[in-house]
């Protein structure tokens, strides 16, 4: 196994590392040269080449110098422990990345789902609300609530129904100027009181 001898440059090239990396590994005692030439050049034997391949493999799975040093001097159970710890680390990292991926997908969906493909047009939307039992008065209350709760989303939603900008503006002004809850209950402040309001007879205006 010790017949072939490599210089730093030749060995570095053979495993795709730089010369300075090998010099660094020598300096920290991770991979000392097998021999020195008469002129003090570093010479590496086959065993050093095999050791360097192993080091490169461990680096490739994200292990640090300290762990690699421990692995190279370790046997059996200790090796498995270090590698298992790294595997756990990778699994946590993957789970974290998956969660980030999921959140990003969700954010993109929320952002674009209505803009990219219009969910419904105005006529269909009104049909569904009517079928559920909402009359004109209740639909007006719905606009008022939407405008008060989330004006930007109200705007986005109306756009998604394909309603022209001028009509949207009219609807939103109408939603602010004539809150139906004030019309029916002049003394009650415009507040979000779902329990109080929903306790009124829901069908009273129908």
């Amino acid at each position: 196994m010790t017949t072939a001898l490599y210089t730093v440059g030749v060995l570095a090239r053979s495993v795709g590392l730089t010369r300075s990396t090998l010099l660094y590994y020598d300096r920290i005692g991770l991979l000392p040269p097998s021999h020195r030439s008469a002129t003090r050049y570093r010479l590496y034997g086959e065993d050093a080449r095999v050791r360097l391949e192993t080091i490169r493999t461990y680096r490739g799975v994200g292990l640090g110098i300290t762990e690699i040093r421990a692995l190279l001097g370790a046997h059996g159970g200790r090796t498995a422990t270090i590698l298992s710890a790294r595997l756990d680390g990778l699994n946590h990292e993957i789970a974290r990345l998956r969660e980030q991926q999921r959140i990003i997908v969700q954010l993109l969906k929320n952002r674009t789902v209505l803009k990219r493909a219009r969910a419904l047009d105005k006529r269909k939307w009104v049909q569904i609300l009517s079928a559920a039992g909402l009359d004109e008065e209740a639909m007006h209350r719905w606009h008022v609530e939407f405008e008060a709760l989330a004006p930007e989303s109200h705007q986005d939603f109306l756009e998604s129904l394909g309603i022209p900008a001028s009509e949207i503006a009219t609807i939103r002004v109408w939603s602010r100027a004539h809150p139906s809850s004030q019309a029916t209950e002049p003394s009650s402040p415009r507040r979000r009181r779902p329990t109080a309001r929903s306790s009124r007879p829901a069908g009273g205006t129908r």
Partner: protein
Amino acid sequence: MTKQPFGKDAWVEMFRVVGLDEAMMGRWHHEFETRWPAEHEKFLAWLGVPETDIGRIRSSARGTAPHP
């Protein structure tokens, strides 16, 4: 949608405020699902409802009688 200021819960509350009870909301889902299933799905996704819940809501909407 530039923001997600409310999700499903706020939407449900908004419907309650304007006078929809549970039965009416069930009917609303049923109408939405039977008339325009793809749009129903898109709408629920926009509200931020998780995919598994979307499947559950839609299958239950298909089974809900329109006028119980």
